[in-house]
């Protein structure tokens, strides 16, 4: 036997890194992607721990502060000395001519802020807590981003709304992923007449105009339907219209993987279709599915807020970013209380973050890049 060590190529063996280790390394070298990941984590964590982060319940009303503007946090007292953070209460002034009510900060009513104060109770995983991340020491109300027409804290509702919006995003993404993968993989793998029928179905779904379908939903559903029921129906329609793209992309990919030698050698050792699909084909399409999913999430978030803003999507009393924006649909309330637009900031932040994260993942998972 010749000496194997002599081979130039024997030395070219790479370091012992699995595919996912390589992906992780490539991902963390991309600052934009990492920034996206941090943004995603902020959004997701605020959804999961909304009870802790938001100072008040979504339904807690401060009846003495209707349309009250945001209260700035001060760290210098009136003499200009550094002090613990505090907020100032408002004094209502009425313009004698226009009868317009304006809020003026009142130096007399100072409330100090503190971390980990006790406030409204919140539930997490069946346990009940009453500690909130921050609040006033004396238990009086303060509104970081002002209040709405019923005196509810905008900041608290915005954090609370993250839950419904993200839940919608994840539910739609996950269901569309599952359906799209099952349909796409089976259609590509089995081929033939089955593939032909499935692809015509995909084309039918893709040719559907979606906006009329959402509007039709309002017409179909009874006036007094449960908000949860509407939420589920709404998600179902989104799923119905979104799995088709993924299934078509995967079908093409599966057709090319199906003829790879490693699939043929699995046939040669006697592997069943089930084994080939789950051990060989699906793992090799996973990067595509993951990247598709990360791009899908921001799209669903945008669509949810757009439709809820129109009053078609999520219904009150469920709080989502879209339903919050629904309150400012007339110009008067927009002019009087622009802070009600705050959820737009969260939408922009989360869409940018998930898109950046998706870009980073796509670059990191590209099997051909090694730079």
């Amino acid at each position, binding site marked *: 036997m*010749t000496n194997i060590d002599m*081979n130039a190529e024997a030395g070219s*063996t790479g370091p012992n890194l699995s595919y996912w280790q390589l992906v992780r390394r490539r991902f963390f070298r991309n600052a934009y992607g990492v920034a996206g990941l941090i943004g995603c984590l902020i959004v997701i964590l605020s959804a999961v721990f909304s009870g802790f982060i938001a100072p008040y319940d979504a339904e807690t009303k401060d009846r003495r502060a209707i349309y009250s503007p945001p209260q700035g946090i001060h760290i210098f007292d009136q003499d200009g000395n550094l002090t613990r953070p505090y907020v100032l209460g408002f004094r209502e002034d009425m313009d004698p001519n226009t009868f317009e009510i304006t809020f003026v900060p009142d130096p007399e009513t100072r409330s100090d802020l503190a971390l980990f104060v006790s406030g409204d109770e919140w539930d997490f995983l069946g346990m009940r807590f009453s500690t909130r991340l921050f609040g006033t020491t004396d238990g009086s109300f303060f509104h970081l981003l002002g209040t709405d027409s019923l005196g509810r804290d905008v900041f608290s509702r915005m954090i609370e709304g993250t839950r419904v919006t993200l839940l919608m995003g994840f539910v739609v993404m996950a269901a569309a992923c599952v359906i799209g993968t099952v349909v796409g993989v089976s259609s590509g793998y089995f081929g033939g007449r089955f593939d032909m029928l499935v692809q015509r179905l995909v084309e039918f779904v893709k040719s559907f105009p979606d906006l009329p379908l959402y509007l039709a939903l309002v017409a179909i559903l009874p006036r007094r339907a449960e908000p949860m029921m509407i939420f589920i129906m709404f998600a179902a329609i989104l799923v119905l219209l979104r799995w088709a793209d993924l299934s078509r992309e995967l079908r093409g990919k599966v057709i090319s993987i199906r003829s790879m030698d*490693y699939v*043929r050698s699995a046939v040669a050792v006697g592997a069943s279709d089930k084994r080939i699909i789950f051990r060989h084909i699906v793992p090799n399409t996973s990067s595509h599915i993951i990247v598709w999913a990360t791009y899908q999430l921001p799209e669903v978030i945008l669509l949810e807020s757009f439709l809820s803003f129109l009053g078609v999507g999520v219904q009150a009393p469920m709080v989502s970013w879209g339903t919050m924006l629904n309150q400012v649909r007339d110009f008067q309330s927009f002019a009087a209380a622009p802070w009600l637009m705050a959820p737009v900031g969260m939408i922009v932040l989360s869409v940018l973050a998930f898109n950046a994260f998706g870009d980073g993942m796509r670059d990191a998972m590209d099997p051909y890049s090694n730079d």
Partner: protein
Amino acid sequence: MTNPLLKIENVEVSFRTVTGTVKAVRGVSYEVAKGETLAVVGESGSGKSVTARAIMSMLAENAQVGSQTKIWFDGEDISNFSDLQMQSIRGNRISMIFQEPLTSLNPIYKVGEQVAEIIQTHRPMSKKAARQEVLQLFKEVQLPNPEARLDQYPHEMSGGQRQRVMIAMALANKPDLLIADEPTTALDVTVQAEILSLLKDLQKSHNMAVVLITHDLTVVEKTSDHVVVMRYGEVVERGSTKDVFENPQHPYTQHLLASEPKGRPDDLVPNAAPLMQAQDMRIAFTLAEGGFFSRKYTELVAVNNISATIRAGETLGIVGESGSGKTTLGMAMVRLMDPQQGEITFAGSRIDHLSRQEMRPYRPRIQVVFQDPFSSLNPRMIIRQILEEGLIVNGIGASAQDRDEMIKKALDDVQMPHDAMQRFPHEFSGGQRQRLAIARALVLRPEFILLDEPTSALDLSIQAQIIDLLRDLRHKHNLSYMFISHDLKVVKALCHNVIVMQHGNVIETGPTSQVLEAPQTYYTRRLVNAAFNVLA
């Protein structure tokens, strides 16, 4: 060599990768004079192509060229030339031919236009004049029927013809230096011989300097004046071709020279029973041609009434150019493809009518090793999972420990370390991967293995090792092989009997020594000449 045309000194190239910086080329120097051929030899990963790309400044984006690098072309230092300056040199005074003729031509332009574009970029002239010049070039590279070729698209031509177009493109502006990067590796042996003779003739008539990059030592010996041997990005030996081949100094060069496939198949057991038999096999594909209204269906007969018998312990070689139907025949015999007609008998039982389900009891006994080790191992599985799959599917081995033992034995058989089990395919080189693919077949203790060009994707020195390995394994486990190949050197070293195929038909058949030493037909003679003498 008083006045070299190209002289490179201390070329260093490194690549930034996720896993750190890789030094691909470290301090390579060589020179080539007008009218001379320099061969750069080395195995894959030795940095020979990267060096050539550095000369053309056509490196990938993550590449860095060392500060000591000096490249003189015709007395000028071009290592610091801007892209614009390089553009006037590339394709004009230095041209390059690439390995893969399938991808180096643009599929949506006619080949005549593609060659004319090169001419017009560097020498403004009318379309008509350029077309005339292209026609002249096509005649020069001996393209059959050159007028008709001008208006053809790349897909209408064979691999060899496309490589001739590439050469015409490279010669379009009468370059002083031609860099040929493995110009024949992707081609059939017979075509390879023709292309190499053409290059040699053209070099003489144009008085060009040629840098020929290759891993094939037979090619080097027949075509070059000087040779540079590279390994791990360094030059290990240089000199005139004659000196290096007669008296190699460096152990690596000696190793390369000693690694031509050699040896003979061991003797057959007389009167062994037939193990695998195929009778009157016929496989045809239906091709659709023409538009929607003028659709015509033609039948392409890939395998035309072929019978083959492999006795226990025998190695049968199937030889032919690409497109001769040899792989189709092999795949049909192991039932990875369905024959239209014919009887297949394995160890006394008919298997040609069995469904995929009914074939499963036979699968462990009949195994396959594919041509391309890069696509035959699932990139998402570790080696243990890959080797274990056949055992799990067929219910072999009582426990995970049992199976581990079997896998370790198979790894020993192919001389791979046990720690390979925990690693992914991408961590191994081509030769190592092919060993693992063989281990996957062996772990099931088969009686028959179909080897579909298992060595053609590998470097020559590794080919020889795989051939030796296969021969040893055949003896050790009493296997029978069907060996598909276009390389007669390999067939000579491994096969007892051989079937020569062309266009789906058997041209010649018989014991290997008889067929190779006294070929009866012109086709076989051409194959033999191309393999052993690099002659067209």
